[in-house]
C-alpha cells in the first residue's frame, strides 16, 4: 500500500509541476501575444499617418493643380492629353475636361505649327526641358499665341511616361512686341527724315544756285530786249545757259527724291559679295566711259551680314562712282578701283573701296561726309553723306582715308550674323 500511495503522490506532484509549467508558458505566450498585438497596432497607426500624409500631399498638389492660374497639362508621347487643370480648360476653350482629355493636343495647335510642336514634344520625351512658342486656335476658334514650358515626368524606375506642360497666353505680349518693332522702324524712319531735314537747308542752297543763274540770265536778256540793242544771235548763249541750269536744278531734285523715299529698311541675311558684284554692275557704264577698271578682291567664305541689300548696294556703287569720277577729274593714268571684302573678327565684315586717284586733301578729310560738300564741278555733295547715314543705320561705320602713295580709301563695316542673330532669324521665320 505504501508503495502505491507513494507512486500516487509522486504522480500528483509531477502533475502539479506540469500544470504550473504549462501555466507559466501560457502566461508568457499571452504576454508575447499582447506585445505583438500592440506592436502591430502601432505599425498600423504609423501606416495610417503615412497614408494620411500621402492623401494630404495629393490633395495639396491637386489643389495647386486645380487652382494654378496657368494651364497645366499632362500629355503622353503621342500627344494625348492625360490631365488638364481648369485654367487649361479655359485657355483652350473647353467646357468640360472630356472636351480635351483623351484627345490629341494638336487639335488646338495651328496647322503650320504642328510639326514644330511635335519636334518639341520629341525633345521632352528624350529628356530635355524646352520652352516654345506657337500659334494656337482654341476649341472656340480664337486664334492666339501661346508659350509652353515643358518638362519630362518620370516614374519610379526613371522612365519618362508623360510631358508636364505649363502654357500661357502671350498674345498681348506678342502684340506689344510687334508694336515695339513697328515703333522702332518708325523711329528709324523719323531719324532718317530728320537727317533729311538737316539736309533741307543744304538742298535749298544747292537749288538756289541754278535758280539764281537762271534769273540772272533771263533778266539780262530782258534788259537787252527792252533796250532794243540786242540781236537774236546774241541771245542764244544765255538762253542755252538757262536750259542747262534748269536741268541742273532738276537733277538736284531727282537726287533728293531718290534718297528721301520713305523706304523702311528691309533687313535680311545678305551675302556681301553678291551685293558688291551687283553694285559693280551698276557702275559699269561709268567705268567704261571713264576708262576705269573695277577689280574685286572678295573673301571667299565669310558670314552673312544683316543688311538691307539695296541700301548697301547704293553705298558701294556710290563709292565706286566717286572713285571713278575723282580719277577722271585728276586725269589719272591708271584708273583702277578695287573693292575688297574681308571678315573682321567674329562679328564684322569690312568692305573697302580704294582707287589710284589723287586721294583726299588732308584738310578736307573731315568734311567729305558733310552734306553738300563736293569737290566735283557739278556734284550735289549728298552721296557720301547719305552713304554714311545708311552705313550708320546698319550699326556700322564709314571712314575715309588717303593712302600715302596716293589714292583714296573708303571702308565700312557691317555686322556679321552671329549665333544670336541667326537664332532670331530662325525664331522669326517660325512665327511668320
Amino acid at each position, binding site marked *: 500500500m505504501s508503495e502505491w500511495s507513494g507512486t500516487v503522490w509522486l504522480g500528483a506532484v509531477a502533475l502539479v509541476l506540469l500544470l504550473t509549467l504549462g501555466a507559466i508558458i501560457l502566461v508568457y505566450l499571452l504576454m508575447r501575444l499582447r506585445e505583438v498585438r500592440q506592436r502591430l497596432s502601432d505599425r498600423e497607426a504609423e501606416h495610417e499617418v503615412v497614408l494620411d500624409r500621402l492623401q494630404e500631399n495629393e490633395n495639396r498638389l491637386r489643389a495647386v493643380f486645380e487652382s494654378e492660374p496657368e494651364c497645366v497639362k499632362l500629355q503622353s508621347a503621342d500627344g494625348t492629353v492625360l490631365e488638364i487643370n481648369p485654367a487649361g480648360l479655359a485657355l483652350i476653350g473647353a467646357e468640360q475636361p472630356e472636351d480635351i482629355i483623351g484627345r490629341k493636343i494638336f487639335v488646338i495647335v495651328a496647322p503650320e505649327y504642328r510639326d514644330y510642336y511635335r519636334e518639341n514634344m520629341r525633345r521632352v520625351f528624350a529628356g530635355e526641358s524646352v520652352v516654345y512658342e506657337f500659334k494656337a486656335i482654341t476649341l472656340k476658334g480664337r486664334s492666339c499665341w501661346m508659350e509652353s514650358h515643358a518638362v519630362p515626368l518620370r516614374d519610379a524606375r526613371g522612365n519618362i511616361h508623360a510631358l508636364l506642360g505649363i502654357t500661357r497666353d502671350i498674345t498681348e505680349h506678342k502684340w506689344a512686341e510687334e508694336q515695339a518693332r513697328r515703333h522702332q522702324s518708325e523711329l528709324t524712319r523719323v531719324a532718317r527724315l530728320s537727317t533729311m531735314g538737316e539736309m533741307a537747308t543744304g538742298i*535749298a*542752297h544747292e537749288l*538756289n544756285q541754278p535758280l539764281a543763274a*537762271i534769273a540772272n*540770265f533771263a533778266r*539780262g536778256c530782258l534788259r*537787252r530786249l527792252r*533796250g532794243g540793242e540786242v540781236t537774236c544771235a546774241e541771245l542764244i548763249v544765255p538762253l542755252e*545757259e538757262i536750259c542747262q541750269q534748269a536741268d541742273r536744278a532738276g537733277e538736284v531734285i531727282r537726287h533728293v527724291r531718290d534718297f528721301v523715299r520713305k523706304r523702311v529698311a528691309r533687313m535680311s541675311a545678305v551675302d556681301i559679295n553678291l551685293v558688291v558684284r551687283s553694285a559693280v554692275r551698276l557702275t559699269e557704264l561709268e567705268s567704261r566711259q571713264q576708262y576705269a577698271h573695277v577689280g574685286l578682291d572678295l573673301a571667299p567664305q565669310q558670314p552673312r551680314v544683316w543688311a538691307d541689300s539695296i541700301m548697301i548696294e547704293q553705298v558701294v556703287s556710290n563709292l565706286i562712282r566717286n572713285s571713278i569720277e575723282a580719277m577722271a577729274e585728276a586725269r589719272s593714268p591708271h584708273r583702277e578701283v578695287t573693292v575688297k571684302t574681308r571678315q573682321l573678327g567674329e562679328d564684322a565684315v569690312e568692305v573697302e573701296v580704294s582707287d589710284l586717284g589723287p586721294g583726299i586733301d588732308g584738310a578736307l578729310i573731315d568734311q567729305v561726309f558733310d552734306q553738300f560738300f563736293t569737290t566735283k564741278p557739278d556734284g550735289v555733295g549728298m552721296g557720301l553723306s547719305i552713304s554714311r547715314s545708311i552705313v550708320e543705320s546698319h550699326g556700322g561705320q564709314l571712314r575715309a582715308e588717303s593712302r600715302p602713295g596716293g589714292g583714296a580709301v573708303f571702308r565700312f563695316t557691317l555686322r556679321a550674323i552671329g549665333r544670336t542673330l541667326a537664332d532670331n532669324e530662325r525664331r522669326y521665320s517660325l512665327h511668320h
Partner: protein
Amino acid sequence: MSDATVFIIDDDQAVARSLRWLIESVRLKVETFTSAQGFLDQYDPARAGCLVLDVRMPGLSGLELQERLKAQHGYHPPIIFITGHGDVQMAVRAVQAGAFDFVEKPFNDQDLLDRIQRAIAHDAGQRDREEQRSQLKALFASLTPREREVLDLVVGGMSNKGIANALGLSAKTVEVHRAKVMEKLHARSLSDLVKMALQNQGG
C-alpha cells in the same frame, strides 16, 4: 567811271557767268574769277571798280579776302557780298568788317545793279579824294623850308609884320615868300590857303 570794272568772284561758274551777263547789260566792264585766291593773284590796286562775291566760298572765304586786301593795300575796292538764305549773320559780320554792302539771294536785279553803281561811285569818290590828297601833298612838297615856315605862320593868323618880326626878316621878304606860296599851291585867297593847309594836315 567808264573804266570801272566789276570783279565777280563766285566758285559756281554758272552763277558767275550769269552775273556777268546781267551786269554787262548796263554796259559795265566785268571780270569773273572762280576763287578769291585767283582774284588776289592778279589784283591791281590801281584798277577802279567794285567786287561782287559770294560770302560762302570754299578755300579763301570772302571775309578772308576782304581782310587780306585791307592788310596788304590799305584801300580796297568796295565789296558787295551775295549771301544765300540764312547767311545774313555772315553778311552783317562782313559789313562790320568793312564790306560796302550785301544782297541776299534771291535778289532783285535792279537792286543789285543799283548797289553796284553806288559802289562804283563810292570807289570813284574815294579815288578822287585820294588823288587830290596826293596832289596836295606834291604841291606842299614843292615849298622851300622858309616858305613852309611863312605858310605855317600865315595859317596861324599872324600878320606879315608879325611874321617878319618872328622870323627876323623884312616885311618885304615875307611878302615875296607869301606870294610864292600862293602861286605854288595855286591858292587864290587866304581862305583857300588855310583850307588846303588843313586838308594836307588831315591827310
